[in-house]
């Protein structure tokens, strides 16, 4: 595809005011995460046409690459396809909000892109999240661009933008369609070699995602199970097991204390384990005094 190089000029929607620690970059930058190559190229071309000052700094074909590049390049905008290999667009946003450094560039404005998702679209509307429907209509994209430019021009820097994104993501997490109710697990069956260890769930202090496995940590030790955390989660009683990070679920009665820091995270001391767990910004608000 022959695309004109992005003309250099004053960005229409350049952020105003200084962000913490870093001078404002001259250009507004964007990352496009889309696994279908033609659609990614077309979105890039359309954006260049509608927003000549915008620099597309990265194109990612899967969620993991999108996360990595967004953290490395700190773009102003992220266009995230919802259905991608690796991490979905929402999971990418989730991880981005948890891992985004507190100091430095403000959190990107997020725009989700989807072909057809009833639940997601309802949730986006409810949370006032920007989204585009594929095929992307030019008028709709123009509106979206306008809205982004306005938000960049008016919105305050850094912390506020991250806080706004966190609010929206919490709303989206809460809006998840109720999965078919599954009987809560009573016992975790962890296999090592030919032996299967049976661990009653009430003995589990926390679960932690580790690559394709989940670590099941008890006061006595730990086991590995092959069930991914996202499959395990719906089978745990949410009143007893609290998710505190995208990769960590803790049994509430095993949390001795939580200390929040200024970045919005919380550090959890456990009963029965010496290590400290981190509750991400997304989940830390759960820890407040009564």
């Amino acid at each position, binding site marked *: 595809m022959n695309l004109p190089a992005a003309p250099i000029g004053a960005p229409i929607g350049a952020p105003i005011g200084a962000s913490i620690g870093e001078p404002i970059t001259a250009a507004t930058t964007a990352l496009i995460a889309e696994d*279908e190559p033609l659609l990614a190229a077309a979105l890039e071309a359309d954006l260049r046409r509608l927003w000549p000052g915008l620099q597309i700094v990265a194109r990612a074909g899967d969620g993991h690459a999108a996360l990595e590049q967004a953290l490395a390049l700190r773009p102003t905008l992220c266009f995230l396809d919802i259905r991608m*290999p*690796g991490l979905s667009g929402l999971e990418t946003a989730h991880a981005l909000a948890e891992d985004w450094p507190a100091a430095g560039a403000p959190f990107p404005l997020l725009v989700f892109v989807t*072909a057809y998702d009833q639940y997601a679209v309802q949730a986006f509307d409810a949370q006032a999240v920007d989204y585009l*429907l594929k095929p992307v209509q030019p008028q709709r994209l123009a509106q979206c661009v306008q809205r982004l430019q306005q938000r960049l021009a008016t919105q305050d820097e850094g912390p506020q933008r991250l806080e706004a994104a966190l609010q929206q993501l919490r709303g989206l997490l809460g809006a*998840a*369609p109720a999965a078919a109710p599954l009987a809560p697990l009573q016992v975790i069956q962890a296999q090592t070699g030919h032996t299967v260890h049976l661990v009653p769930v009430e003995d589990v202090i926390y679960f932690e995602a580790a690559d394709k496995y989940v670590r099941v940590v008890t006061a006595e030790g730990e086991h590995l199970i092959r069930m991914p955390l*996202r499959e395990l989660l719906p089978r745990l009683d949410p009143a007893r097991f609290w998710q505190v990070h995208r990769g960590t679920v803790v049994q509430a009665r095993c949390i001795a204390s939580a200390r929040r820091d200024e970045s919005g995270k919380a550090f959890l001391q456990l009963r029965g384990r010496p290590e400290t767990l981190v509750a991400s910004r997304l989940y830390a608000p759960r820890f407040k005094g009564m």
Partner: protein
Amino acid sequence: MPGLLPAPLVPPGERRGLVWRLLIVCAVAVVTATVNWATKPAQAAPRSGIGEALVYSFAISLLTWLFIDIGRFVLRRPLRAEPPGWWPPPLRAAMLLALGIAAGYVLGTGLGDLYAGVSTWSLLRDNPNRFTGLLVSSLAISAAFVAYFFQRGRSEALARQAREAQLRLLQSQLEPHMLFNTLANLRVLIGIDPPRAQAMLDRLIGFLRATLDASRSDRGTLAAEFERSADYLALMQVRMGPRLSVALDLPDALRSAAVPPLLLQPLVENAIRHGLEPHLAGGRIELSARRDGAQLVLTVRDDGAGLGGRPQSGSRLRETSTSVRDDGAGLGNASPPGSGFGLQQVRERLRALHGARAGLELRAAEGGGTRAEIRLPWSEAP
């Protein structure tokens, strides 16, 4: 929730059939009574009115009908009567029929005797031949009717099942996510590469036509089946780019084999959606067909994400897996409506068309990925 609400005595879908059978039983009772009355030998007893014959006939037929047709719903748990059809397994069905007919005959005769003020059982002493004749004829009539209804109920249930499977197939084929993504790609191609856009549109047209035809027909050839899979895979190749490679192998001798249309489609889709799409590197799909004696064997193999690396118990893992990436689940962890149906759908269609002579097997492929194999009786399309 079992136990909280009493289940209806007769499932709503079965009520109509029940009423029909009741009406037919009544009509037959009238005919039987008339025949019995007209052919009754004059010397056996003083000639009675037709009313008496009607009472006997109705009492026996209705009680028999009640015991069997209502009985199988009332006793569905111990009888293990399950949808579709609500007929118990053969041995239990035979017991139900035998007991129902016997009880219907004995009690019905008792009621008739009560009305007529005579004892049929004395006939057994006085005129055994005549008694046996009556008994055999009423038993034969009951048995014939029960067998007829049994057969009919079964074929109706199978036909309904096949229709439902076709409807679900149509719904899953016209999956909005696939359609809109394909259209989005098409929209882009129109701008930058019109000939390729036309080729893609032709594939889409072929795919849509096959999908709509499949919802109306049960017959197709393997050649057409491979062509439609090729259409779908070509559409997916435009969308996934170099991440998807495809190989189709259909020997010429098998081109005219008869297969239900779009039988392979859910398997191909399953391989893409659960095998290759979530796999960062993408992968390869191979479709092949071979003949194994009296059977046609169709294989869809992918080298993607595989069955999840967990111990397999049949194919349930892939079907119920919540690791399925999907948009609804982007929010939570639920599978989208329709995602688990694909394989079940294939099984149901095969069962409806070929019973136990066809089947689908899903297993981990050697060297990673998944291998789905369909076996069905060989026949050539007319």
